[in-house]
């Protein structure tokens, strides 16, 4: 049954998304796109784009939206619940333990090794998305490259690094840029 499977998948995602919402992204991709092929990379990237543009924590947005696209409102409920459950249990326990034993430093040391790995995982997800953007489902080659998209990516990346601009504004401009370039090319 899809609902049970969705729940278990997002339970797993929620359990291993350590270090912030973005950590959930490579995990969702690994399950939903690579493992079960419930969504194509293109669909996944679209969902991620929308999850980024909407208010709320990105991990919750992603879980909810992916759930809806796969199995409607029921899917959204089940995916979100699955994702929340590890947090609910673990954080509640941690709150209690921490209040009693103030063992935070020990936890932090133990989990300190996770952050570098998570950074690498998020980088990997980012690269997958970039690959999707530049080449779609085609193989990587000079002729298959979507020049406009790569240009937009480069510009967006530069602006974000250099000016620390608002990510949503940058994404929005990229969207407009895409429209602009397409119209411009059609005119030539």
């Amino acid at each position, binding site marked *: 049954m899809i609902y049970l499977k969705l729940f278990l998948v997002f339970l797993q995602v929620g359990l291993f998304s350590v270090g912030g919402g973005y950590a959930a992204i490579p995990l969702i991709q690994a399950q939903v796109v690579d493992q079960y092929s419930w969504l194509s990379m293109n669909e996944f990237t679209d969902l991620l*784009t929308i999850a980024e543009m909407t208010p709320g924590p990105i991990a919750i947005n992603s879980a909810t939206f992916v759930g809806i696209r796969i199995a409607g409102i029921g899917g959204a409920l089940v995916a979100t619940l699955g994702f929340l459950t590890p947090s609910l249990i*673990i954080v509640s326990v941690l709150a209690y333990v921490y209040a009693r034993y103030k063992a935070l430093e020990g936890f932090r*040391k133990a989990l*300190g090794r996770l952050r570098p790995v998570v*950074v690498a995982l998020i980088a990997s997800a980012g690269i997958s998305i970039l690959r999707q953007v530049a080449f779609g489902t085609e193989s990587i080659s000079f002729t298959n490259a979507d020049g406009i998209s790569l240009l937009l990516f480069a510009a967006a990346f530069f602006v974000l690094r250099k000016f620390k601009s608002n990510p949503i504004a940058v994404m929005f401009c990229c969207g407009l840029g*895409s429209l602009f370039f397409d119209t411009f090319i059609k005119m030539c």
Partner: protein
Amino acid sequence: MIQPSKKIIWKLFVTMLYISAFTFGGGFVIITFMKRKFVDEFHWINEEEMLEMTALAQTAPGAIAVNAAILVGSKMAGIPGILAAVLGTAIPPFVILSVISLFYSLFITNPYIALVLKGMQAGVAAVILNVVCDLGSTVIKDHNRLNIILMAGAFVLTVFFNVNAILLIAVALIIGIASALFSNNKKHPDKKEVSK
């Protein structure tokens, strides 16, 4: 034990609902607004507690904003507090994205929207890789050799060898627990005793 007041539970719910519905930019921004409300405005917790909660929220798995909501809810009103805070956080995305999903099938077929979305995809890639650069430079600036090796190693393994993400996380956890236990038994030679 004092019965948590219904008023507090309701306030928890409404506050998180409001923050989650109007905060763009992800977990940390939400935590910033949580601080403004719970520390500065309501005086439910003090700043030090908020910092500790943030650290704890980051340490635990799941979305930071949700974890922080659980911690505040737990402190203020126990289990009902947790439920109120989490529901408040999760409902806005649920509603908003359901609505978007309704129209998604409609507007995804529109060629203009498709173009805009394609452009935004390039933007998302940039946003994510930008976050990666920020996080990565923090790791590098720490000058912790093991961490840098872990980061580079994990990167190579996942990008070029498709190693399972969860496997990498599990290994990192084991290394972490091992190194934490190890450093507890070992004396730190460069830690100097500060005499008071």
